[in-house]
């Protein structure tokens, strides 16, 4: 059994990256042995649909659960479709999150916890002024 955690650096001491689709690294870890593998997230810079593309890249890795900060509706749909449990609101160090998961302190979500594009940053400049939106 393996779980996957979004991370800011490729090691177990790193802080969890709160974003799913645009996280910097994925850490795939076996909670029993603490053996892990770090993968760079190639979807981090996708123009759009980063969450779907990131989810697609991990669906065939035999993963039981995803531990992350936030997960939007599109990614959630793909992950749950692939039978991966999604656990959001996880913060702190990667290794502590793995421990918490092992001891049963983390519960899976039954729905996405943020809207689409939540983690794609500002700078879209969508303001229209005049109170139209």
């Amino acid at each position, binding site marked *: 059994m393996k779980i996957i955690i979004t991370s800011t650096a490729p090691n177990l001491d790193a802080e969890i990256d709160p974003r799913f689709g645009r996280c910097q690294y994925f850490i795939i870890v076996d909670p029993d042995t603490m053996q892990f593998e770090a993968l760079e997230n190639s*979807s981090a810079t*996708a*123009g*759009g*649909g*980063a969450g*779907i*593309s990131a*989810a*697609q890249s991990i*669906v*065939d890795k035999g993963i039981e659960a995803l531990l992350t900060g936030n997960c939007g509706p*599109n990614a959630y*749909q*793909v992950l749950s*479709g*692939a039978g991966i449990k999604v656990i959001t609101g996880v913060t702190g160090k990667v290794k502590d999150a793995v421990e918490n998961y092992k001891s049963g302190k983390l519960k899976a979500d039954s729905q996405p916890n943020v809207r689409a594009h939540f983690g794609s940053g500002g700078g879209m*400049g*969508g*303001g*229209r*002024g*005049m109170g*139209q939106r």
Partner: protein
Amino acid sequence: MIISVASGKGGTGKTLVATSLAVSLKDKCSLQLVDCDVEEPNDHLFLKPVIDKKEPVAIPVPKIDETKCTFCGKCAEVCAYNAIAVLPKNVLVLPNLCHGCGACSYLCPEKAITEEDMIIGVVESGHAGNIDFIQGRLNTGEAMPVPVIRKVKEKVSPDKTVIIDISPGTSCPVVESVKGSDFCLLVTEPTPFGLNDLTLAVETVRKLGILCGVVINRAGDNQGKMEAYCREQNIPVLMTIPLDTEIARLYSRGITLAEGMPRWQEKFESLFRHIKELVDERSSSLKR
């Protein structure tokens, strides 16, 4: 001649300028007003057109025959917009992200993908007096205005004087709407946001090789920086509209500036003459 009205920043007065320009010119030439701000078309509120034709706009989205699909993942791999995810036992299509490019169905090795039309909006055409009126409307919740804008622009008659009202910003919908114009009027306001977004809009329009000029709206005594920028960039300031509550009052009641304050008609006519001179000057210099 096609004149587009854009801005960069939202809420600067594109609709105010586009509708008043149209109303001021309607008896002088054969005129078409085209509202390409398909996420929020507003010109109709001022022109009150009679709409006599509505045509739906659809994009082709993939439909997967899972009896033929081998879950090879090729479609997800070739989708530039990540609109398809291939799971071990099923395929998820996210139609809201689909641009309708057709790559997935073209490249599917099993020919398991067909395309079906998904309606995303409508093109409405009609007339407001002697103004030929066209507008696009993107359905609520749809994410992609460009296919609707393309359909709207198929209705443009370049032999008429065409005024295109454009959405704010400088992204794909704006590029699609401005493309092919003879002149782009950039409406701005003398605020730091106004100037910042005007700079972006000027870069975009110049990259498209389109002549531009500026209208400063809600002007007071604070447009020094704006004017300095325009001088420096050699962009003509073609009109200045003052910050005036009477203008705002008319606007809020759906009355164009040209109708509510008829003295503005002459100003919009002269704005048009000025634009025409700039366009003629350029085309004669290109011929040389």
